[in-house]
């Protein structure tokens, strides 16, 4: 095995062991049933013991200096247990926006805290949807006359928006999009949790009323373009992980559950369903990792591939999650069984950051169809 492949494999195993120990699907259930969005002790340990928060942060800001390939592997593993915590918002969205930005001062201010597990963050771009789309920004920013800025507007579907210590938000400055950092407890900021499908990923509505903010000095449109692709690719990795776990669950059940005196997995209908879903899972995983590799290389095909991965992995996860319930029969329909958490994560993540049809349209545009 090559050096990189070995390191990746080790990263995968370390992450999987940590999650099995501290953040399994049972832990996810425990956290969300207690009404929380995160087990903070585990979050802290994740940073201190295996350093996942800093994996794709440059060494100069305290991180491990790796990139999208490694972060993708971590997201896939987190997806397997539907990890409930601000990883996606903080590490994929906020941290990668700061990594992509040219503003060293901003990076120095916030990234080390994220790496240490001391600071959580999120990124809010479109006002009305969860998309990382600079074209859909309505919130506006004005200088406060003292070098700072004030934001006015509101953002819906902000991932972990209620708990984030740092909110990076896109806002318009004279018609151009800019990127701003807002403290979670800033004056003029209202945060309300949004009751929605997926209990394992908290969403919020944020309202800014002349809320003080610091501008991140960078080409915001370019940064958001990069983050959009990273979000697509890493979400696909997460979806591939979730789909893999749901399929394993279905297959294990089909081996032992008997009906008509034989395991249901011996029926053709179940076999064919599982075989088709294995194709879904493998293809989702391979697409996500191909996208991550191209993003690491800043390859011209990276954006297209990230959208291709997103267009496939979202519906693929949903198909697997639905079939998992179908194969479990009645028991899979109950609240007590874990199957519904997978369905909820699947549908939510399929819709939240841009629909499959949206990603297909993007592929058509980028591929010159």
């Amino acid at each position, binding site marked *: 095995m090559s050096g990189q492949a070995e390191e990746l494999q080790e990263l995968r195993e370390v992450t999987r062991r940590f999650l099995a120990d501290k953040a399994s699907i049972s832990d996810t259930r425990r956290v969300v049933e207690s009404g929380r969005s995160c087990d903070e002790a585990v979050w802290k340990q994740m940073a201190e013991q295996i350093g996942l928060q800093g994996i794709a942060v440059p060494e100069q800001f305290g991180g491990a200096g790796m990139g999208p390939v490694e972060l993708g592997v971590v997201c896939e593993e987190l997806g397997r247990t539907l990890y409930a915590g601000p990883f996606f918002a903080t590490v994929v969205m906020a941290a990668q926006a700061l990594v992509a930005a040219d503003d060293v001062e901003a990076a120095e201010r916030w990234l080390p805290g994220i790496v240490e597990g001391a600071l959580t963050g999120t990124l809010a771009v479109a006002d009305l*949807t*969860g998309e990382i789309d600079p074209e859909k920004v309505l919130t506006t920013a004005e200088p406060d006359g003292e070098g700072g800025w004030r934001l006015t507007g509101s953002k*819906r*579907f902000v991932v972990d928006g209620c708990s984030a210590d740092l909110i990076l938000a896109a806002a318009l400055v004279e018609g151009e999009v800019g990127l701003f950092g807002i403290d979670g407890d800033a004056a003029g900021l209202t945060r309300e949790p*949004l*009751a*929605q*499908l*997926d209990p394992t990923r908290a969403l919020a*509505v944020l309202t800014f009323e002349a809320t003080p903010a610091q501008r991140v000095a960078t080409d915001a449109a370019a940064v958001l373009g990069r983050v959009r692709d990273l979000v697509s690719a890493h979400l696909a990795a997460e979806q591939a992980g979730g789909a893999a776990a749901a399929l394993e669950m279905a297959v294990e059940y089909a081996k032992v559950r008997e*009906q*008509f*005196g*034989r395991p249901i997995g*011996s*029926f053709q*209908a*179940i076999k064919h369903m599982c075989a088709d879903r294995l194709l879904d899972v493998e293809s989702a995983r391979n697409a996500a990792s191909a996208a991550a590799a191209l993003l690491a290389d800043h390859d011209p095909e990276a954006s297209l591939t990230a959208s291709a991965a997103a267009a496939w992995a979202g519906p693929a996860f949903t198909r697997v999650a*639905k079939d998992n*319930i*179908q194969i479990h*029969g*009645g*028991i*899979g*329909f*109950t*609240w*007590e069984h874990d*199957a*519904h958490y997978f*369905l909820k994560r699947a*549908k*939510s993540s*399929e*819709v*939240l950051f841009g*629909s499959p*049809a949206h990603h297909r349209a993007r592929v058509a545009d980028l591929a010159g169809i």
Partner: protein
Amino acid sequence: MTTIQHPVHPSVDDPSHALHAESDEEFRLRLRAFLTSGGPGPRPRDPRERVAWTKAWHRNLYDAGYAGPSFPQEVGGMDLPFGRQVIYQEEIARAKVPGALGTGLGIVAPTIIRYGTEVQKQTWVRAMLRHDEVWCQGYSEPGAGSDLPSLRTTARREGSGEDEVYVVNGQKVWTSSGILADTLFCLVRTGSQESRQKGITYLIIDAKAPGVTIRPLKDLNGGTIFAEVFLDDVRVPVANRIGEENSGWALVRTSLGHERAAGSMNQAARYRRVLDELIQLAQERGLTSDPLIRDQLADFDIRVRLMRFNAERIIAGILERGEPGPTSSVSRLMLTTFEQELHEFAVDMLGPDGLVTKASDAAVQRARWLSGFLTSRAATIGAGTAEIQRNTIAEQVLRLPHDPAMPPR
């Protein structure tokens, strides 16, 4: 479970007597007038109030002589000819009045009418019709889902003469509306485990009897569509048995063909209404100009029309030849996945807004589409999975050969 006898027709102005005097159209108008003027009033939001409201409505319906369109008059029904049953179902669908609670009227009542004793018919069917009692089903067990003949709830006889009872032990699950149950209609094992369907007996069990515990099953949407039922040394009078001991399996298969046929139009009308509401929502949100959404909506629209045509064909078959024909075997297959597909499409169409649950004021239409997306997962599981349905069609309608690894029918 009540044993009170109701008067045969409490209403002085017995509308069923007018049957032969009036035309189909007059019947339709009379029924429509009743459903409008005598209607149940606004639907309460509180679930408990809604149950009481539904019961009151059905009592009202019975007392006015408008319950049980297909049931004999001797048991309190209307005994309508089939064509009028169709009219009845059309008007019921049109009036948007609440449907029956429990599953007794649809499932066990025809069995009782066909196989029950005179006393059973008189007491039980009337109680169901008038909603004095809600009857729920106890067929499935944790180990026996699609494979009902493997069920393990036992009933052994004790005592003799009038005191003779079955002592029932076991567990039932997936009892729809179970938490509302006054009475349970159950399949229990009186023969050996190996006797499979040959050792099954049909028992009616008082849900309030000692030893019966009903626990709501929280479903994936956080509701309680189903319940599980625990039966610990429950003593059931032998008189509560329908048919002979060990003959229960045959009773399960009591043909509901004609009953279902009249109801199939009701189903088609229901989906028509649901789809129209979705189309309206799409229009309000400016989504129907998206060609992909438009194409999908048209596809759903076509399928809803096909449902109606299929129902019309089934009904015409019964009216003209006395049998519903092959369409009746497959029409349910279209309904099964339609509900799932329509609700999933609605959620997708709404985008992130479609993900907001009813706990939030921002929910679109109280999150009905999202809830439907979740609860419609049961459509392909309940009442025999979609896989089992297809097997049955293949073997019983197309006469394809039985799977040699399956137990004999």
